[in-house]
């Protein structure tokens, strides 16, 4: 039997109290739990529903491919290529530093990158662009991406992303025109030009890509997906398909462009050319040599390589000489001097001037190139034989009140931007008395303006800085009777199948009043220069089936080889195209630039050339 004390009276007061205490504790704790549940579920329920939604629903941007860029015949110049890149999502990376480093270590092993450098770069990028998804590596092998996807537990926060990269099938040809695409910067996001663009989107950064970005840029799609706790996709809730950007058709002719660049590459390899329609400003070709392969910019590029592309030794391949170059233009400038002289009434086409081989002004003697004397001549033969002394006199006499030479050069677009649809264009320099006197005041030059400056300018020597496109515009203005065109590359906006959506209107041209006889006599003189006996480029063009008007130019550089220029208008007498070519160290205009021009004209007019075009002709 059990002990007596085991049989206890039913409920002692002490036990009753203690049981009541336990009951009280239970009551209190249930009350606490109920109030807490009421607060969580009834009062804050909606917030937690939102939190649960945020947990599982992710918006995934589907990047819209950019529109392609084609030449005037529809040949693709800039295309898209699908690629996969590896990115990191910072808030999904492990919180612990050691774990994060482990992820980077694995990634480094997989991608062949330095883990520490990778981590530093991600941190730097996040500092600059918080909440972005820094790219670890672009254009990754699909097998590597599959490896990462299959092992998401080992690579938390590492995500592949489909990216459409630009591809340039023709490499060096037209490389300077297209520009690059890159992630939009915070500053750009504030700009209204980029309305509708969001962080991480890629936009045109330079060249055509930047100029026509709003057309080329597509509308990004989005997928709203549900993911589980491991970030694995469980289902797609909604999907908005991306809309590819519009196709842009350029006025460029790939064939002419290629021939032009090849022709230049066959010279000293440093130069530029422009081919433009003189009636509407459509740029048919615009090239600069040396060139580069724009495909290298679709991936991150090393500083070393970038430095090389900017180095003098390699001729600064990134530098677009056609619109950024600043050169004296040699005798090709005589067209402008002639226009100023005729329009200001200084001479008529028939006014005879004497060319004894040199002109002495203020104790300085200016000589003809090659020292020949052309005797007495009027404007047309003076252009044909490129008499310097003839134009020295015009330069001397135009150095008067109102500076008609500068006035007309300015009107024809020298020293100012042409307004072409490329953002990087520079204006060059038109020397004026005010410019030099200002420099002199600041003690940046040794002397004020003198008549000698104007004499130099009259034959395109000295301080003048112009590029081939500016010369093309000036020549076109004379050829078309006074319309200073704004050159343009963009022709029209099309859908992906090439159906026109929007014609890009030709920009309005600036008009200058030009007497018809001014135009006609100048053109006649230039025609003679390319066809008459004694014409400076007659040997180059005499057997060319298309009649042309063209002017050679040889710009002198102190201590360096002469720069060769040629500007042609064809066909004569009603030109459709202007071709301006320069080779930085090509010597006489007739030696290199003229034969290059002939090759370009042959491509332009579909002329079958039988032999190699030889340079040569009179000095100018």
């Amino acid at each position, binding site marked *: 039997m059990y002990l007596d*004390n085991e049989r206890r009276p039913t409920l002692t007061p002490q*036990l009753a109290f203690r049981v009541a205490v336990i009951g009280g504790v239970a009551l209190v704790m249930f009350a606490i739990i109920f109030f807490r549940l009421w607060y969580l*579920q009834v009062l804050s329920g909606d917030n937690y529903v939102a939190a649960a939604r945020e947990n599982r629903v992710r918006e995934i941007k589907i990047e819209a491919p950019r529109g392609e860029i084609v030449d005037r015949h529809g040949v693709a110049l800039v295309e898209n290529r699908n690629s996969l890149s590896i990115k990191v999502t910072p808030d999904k990376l492990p919180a612990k530093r050691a774990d994060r480093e482990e992820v980077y270590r694995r990634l480094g092993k997989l991608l062949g990158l330095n883990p520490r450098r990778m981590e530093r770069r991600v941190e730097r990028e996040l500092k600059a662009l918080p909440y972005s998804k820094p790219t670890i590596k672009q254009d990754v092998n699909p097998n590597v991406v599959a490896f990462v996807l299959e092992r998401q537990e080992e690579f938390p926060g590492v995500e592949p992303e489909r990216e459409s990269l630009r591809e340039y099938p023709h490499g060096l040809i037209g490389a300077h025109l297209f520009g690059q695409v890159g992630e939009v910067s915070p500053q750009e996001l504030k700009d209204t030009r980029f309305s509708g663009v969001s962080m991480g989107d890629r936009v045109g950064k330079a060249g055509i890509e930047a100029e026509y970005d709003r057309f080329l840029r597509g509308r990004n799609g989005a997928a709203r997906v549900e993911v589980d706790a491991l970030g694995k996709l469980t289902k797609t809730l909604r999907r908005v398909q991306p809309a590819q950007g519009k196709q842009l058709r350029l006025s460029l002719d790939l064939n002419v462009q290629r021939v032009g660049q090849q022709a230049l590459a066959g010279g000293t390899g440093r130069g530029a050319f422009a081919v433009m329609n003189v009636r509407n400003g459509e740029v048919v070709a615009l090239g600069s040599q040396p060139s580069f392969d724009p495909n290298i910019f679709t991936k991150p590029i090393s500083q070393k390589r970038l430095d090389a592309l900017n180095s003098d030794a390699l001729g600064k391949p990134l530098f677009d000489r056609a619109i950024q170059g600043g050169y004296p233009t040699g005798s090709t400038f005589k067209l402008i001097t002639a226009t100023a002289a005729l329009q200001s009434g200084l001479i008529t086409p028939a006014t005879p001037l004497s060319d004894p081989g040199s002109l002495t002004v203020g104790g300085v003697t200016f000589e003809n190139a090659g020292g020949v004397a052309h005797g007495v001549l009027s404007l047309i033969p003076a252009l044909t034989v490129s008499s310097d002394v003839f134009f020295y006199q015009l330069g001397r006499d135009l150095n008067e009140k109102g500076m008609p030479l500068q006035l007309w050069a300015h009107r024809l677009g020298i020293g100012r931007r042409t307004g072409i649809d490329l953002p990087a264009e520079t204006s060059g320099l038109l020397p004026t008395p005010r410019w030099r006197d200002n420099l002199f005041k600041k003690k940046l030059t040794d002397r004020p303006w003198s008549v000698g400056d104007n004499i130099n300018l009259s034959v395109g020597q000295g301080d003048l800085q112009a590029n081939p496109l500016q010369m093309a515009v000036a020549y076109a203005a004379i050829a078309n009777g006074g319309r200073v065109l704004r050159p343009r590359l963009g022709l029209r906006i099309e859908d992906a199948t090439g159906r026109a959506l929007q014609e890009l209107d030709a920009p309005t041209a600036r008009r200058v009043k030009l007497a018809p006889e001014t135009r006609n006599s100048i053109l006649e003189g230039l025609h003679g220069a390319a066809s008459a006996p004694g014409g400076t480029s007659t040997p180059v063009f005499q057997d060319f089936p298309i009649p042309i008007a063209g002017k050679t130019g040889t710009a002198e550089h102190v201590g360096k080889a002469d720069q060769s220029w040629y500007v042609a208008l064809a066909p004569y007498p009603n030109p459709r195209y202007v071709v301006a070519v320069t080779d930085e160290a090509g010597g006489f205009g007739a030696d290199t630039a003229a034969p290059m021009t002939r090759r370009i004209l042959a491509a332009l007019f579909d002329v079958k050339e039988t032999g190699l075009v030889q340079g040569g002709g009179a000095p100018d």
Partner: protein
Amino acid sequence: MAASTATAVKDFRESSERFLRIDPLMLLATIGLIAASIYIVGTATQDDRADANYFLYRQAAYAGVGFVLMLLISRFDYSRLREWKLGIYAFLIGSILLVYAMGVSARGSKRAISVPFFSFQPSELGKLLLIVALAGFMVDRIRRLGDRETTSRMVLLAVVPAMLVIGQPDLGSGLVYIAILVAILFIAGTPWTHFAALTGLAAAAIVVVVIAAPAAGVEVLKPYQKDRLTAFLSPGENQGKEAYQINQSLTAIGSGGKTGRGDEATQTKLDFLPEHHTDFVFSVVGEEFGFVGAALVLSLFALLIWRALRTLTIAKNFYGALVAGGITAMLMFQVFVNVGMTIGIMPITGIPLPLVSYGGSSVITTLMAIGLLQSIHAQARETAAVKRL
């Protein structure tokens, strides 16, 4: 033949009478909680394994086994257990030590022994064993209740298995053991001064473990245990795994709203809620059935605890009262700490929700404990009936 028939009839009568002496309300609460458990564990784990009903079937099987054990125990006179206290206590210590020797590891801790069909956690069954043994030792010293020696002996008897369990490491079960000790001392009538002294000692121990020992270079708590505490104390700052669990649990429960999200319970279905069939099963209830469902489950627990306390008061002997008190404390402590953890008012300690959390050891132990409560209830009613005669 006739006599044997009469005996059979009498037996049947007696047994049905005895059956009727169990507490029907307690039975109702038990059945309700078990049914809820099977349903919740079933829906929460549909996508967790290739066999969608793996956890459902297993939990149902555990519940079935536990239910049979509960009924058997309720027919048995619990008072006999008092005589076996030494053996039971030895078995308790032995089984925990066995875990150290041949336990299977799961997530960094050894808590279970592998037996055919499932892994058995001695620390779970140990809760019940400790109650039964401790109550027995207490009754032996009933006359020297106010002695300090009695109290210290009891403390020692409980702290040894508690420390062994905490070392596995299974902090949650160790804390349950301490709660059981406190309850049995309390019900036995230990003077308040002793409780005050024990509280002081416990505080000193905590200071040593949490502050002094780490300062001296001895880490008593495992890093994850410390993480849990800091995550609980400052969930906003800590973005580690522990804070993640708390936040996901709060999101699950909160998003349940008034009536729950039913099949839209994405926190559970998409695995944002960790341990959703074991430690965080209450969060699943909260998400799927909202305030209404959570309140229902809590009400069943309240009913169970009320009936347990009532059983304590009617026990036919002191031993029964102590056992009932221990079981009540075990249930209360586990419910409060587990639910408190899921709603962010208690730190994460890895204590299961009795009867509801998935797990054979826990479910079967709890059902056996309830069987014992029923036995105490039935014995009390029988004694009362005998007295009336």
